């Protein structure tokens, strides 16, 4: 997995609550057996009209937000479907950090697994950042995960909180499966015990 240390670039404001994963990446992108090119489908119906032409007013279709690296969103971002295509499409577009007052649980876990940093921040602070991001002259921001800070174009910075395990995983790009496989003996011991306490769960 890619590591996450620092990230600099335009931050795009998306001041809407409850943006669900169907809106982040709609169903027509789910039938492929590839992650490639999903960035094109990110926030599809906001970005394209029904003839698949770009909607010029939408934030990600404007300069400099076409190269947005950070997304500022409303509460409960990523609710709904468990599709991991949501973080895949954000990452493929180039957005590796989303800042919002809250995120849905499954989306939250899926982002950690894909090196996408989610920052939970109180609404008033998110609103302040959105106001800066709304202006192309002040939308550049730098996220420093180690320092847990977001520095804005004018030079001031705000700090953010993150659980230590998530920070560690993101900074080191750890492969969860390899870490878990190192506990193979403990898993086997659990299974051996469960075979005696709940034998009906073993059908092999």
């Amino acid at each position, binding site marked *: 997995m890619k590591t996450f240390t620092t990230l600099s670039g335009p931050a795009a404001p998306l001041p809407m609550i409850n943006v669900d994963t169907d809106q982040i990446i*709609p169903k027509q992108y*789910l*039938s492929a057996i590839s992650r490639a090119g999903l960035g094109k489908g990110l926030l599809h119906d906001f970005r394209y009209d029904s003839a698949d032409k770009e909607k010029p007013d939408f934030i990600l279709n404007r300069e400099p937000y076409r190269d947005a690296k950070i997304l500022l969103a409303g509460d409960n971002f990523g609710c*709904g479907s*468990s599709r991991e295509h949501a973080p895949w499409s954000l990452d493929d577009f180039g957005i590796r950090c989303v800042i919002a007052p*809250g995120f849905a649980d499954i989306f939250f876990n899926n982002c950690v697994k894909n090196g996408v940093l989610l920052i939970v921040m109180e609404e008033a602070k998110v609103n302040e950042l959105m106001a800066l991001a709304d202006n192309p002259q002040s939308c550049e921001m730098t996220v420093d995960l180690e320092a847990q800070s977001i520095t804005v174009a004018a030079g001031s910075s705000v700090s953010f909180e993150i659980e230590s395990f998530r920070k560690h995983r993101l900074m080191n790009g750890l492969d*969860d499966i390899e870490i*878990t496989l190192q506990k193979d003996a403990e898993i086997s011991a659990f299974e051996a015990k469960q075979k005696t306490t709940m034998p*009906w*769960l073993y059908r092999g």
Partner: protein
Amino acid sequence: MSTQKTLFDKIWENHVVAENDDGTSLLYIDMHLTHEVTSWPGFESMRNSGRRLRRNDALLAVPDHVIPTIDQAGGIKDESSRVQFETLLKNCAEFDVPLIPLLDKRQGIVHIIGPEQGATQPGITMVCGDSHTATHGAFGCLAFGIGSSEVEHVLSTQTLVQKRPKNMRIAIDGELPLGVTGKDMILAIIGTIGTAGGTGHVIEYVGSAIRALSMEGRMTVCNMTIEGGARAGLIAPDETTLAYVKGRPLAPSDELWDAAVKYWRTLPSDPGATYDKEISLDANMIAPQVTWGTSPEDVVPIDGRVPDPAVAKDEKQRDAIQQALDYMGLTANQPIEDIKIDRAFIGSCTNGRIEDMRAAAEVAKGRKIAAGVSAMVVPGSGLVKAQAEAEGLDKILLEAGFEWREPGCSMCIAMNGDILKAGERCASTSNRNFKGRQGRDSRTHLVSPAMAAAAAIEGHFVDVRSLAS
């Protein structure tokens, strides 16, 4: 800390393999259900990394999301979907995964076939790469949806690294009025707690109105728990649960059944167990519910009206309501009963079970759907379909003008060609009224099967109780 444990505490603590230094737990997973859309990355990665599948006796695969509901024998027309479907078959063959194939009578939506096959049992941990895995919590098991990376983690290790969620308790006491269902109950709950109300929690549903529900009704309630923000819903196992599970193909039998039941009886929350959050609702006050907006929390009783953005609590809320009204083509204060529909969809993992088919048929019996409305009924599995046909429900529905389809996810996710056109308005028994969910610029109103059938017959939303013969 209190020694009284909740149902959730008991299941969680019985499945912790290891506690990690960072506060997460390595949790053992007893049953993993899988389907074509979210499983391919896991199999691909196992193949590339040379990792093995840890347990194929704790895994069950079924295709459901992309399959057609007409002429399934004719195969999948869309090439991308067909490749995805065939990839599932290939992966199951290569890794020796138990698979229920497309034309098998047992095939159906993954969350319908799990319980039908007895894979869903009290006290277990259960996952699937699908957010509606919450459904299975109706049996008193800890069941939650995961993404594709976590699917791979379970395939390779039979465990997941998880942060322990908090306990939330929702009590629904009293008696649901006649004609009001589990669907109305869960919509009313989501309307109360909001779509993020359960975030970070597991919700246990308790109370006399929950106890009175059939397993089908309980599954509908737990299914939409994710729409209230909680990954898992739970209902303690009781005699209703045991009667449903007994005799199913994957359920324990003979002395193992007795041992399992003995354990299952220890699962209900201890008296005095504490919860981080508690809510209560009076079942007697719940009327048939209809969503008006683009989030499941946008819900009102059938005798209600579309809300007015002017009375919203803040600017974001006002914008959200206005955007929803614009998208849905509705006006503030419009009575729900005045909303005309074009389509009705009865099915999905929320409402594709036999009880749902019966409810639709009961309303449809001796009536005809309104001119200009088209309506489809999609049983959740081949077994539901066969049972419904044995009861003659298909004939009743066909005579009333409904289409009777073959099982699958169908227009709940609209990946298989069953899709709404732009601007079409649908009374749907599915679980999400998100923008574009059932087709770009389509308009979804979530309702119970009886309410969907009633709307199809009248051509607009109507209190199903006013149709009662």
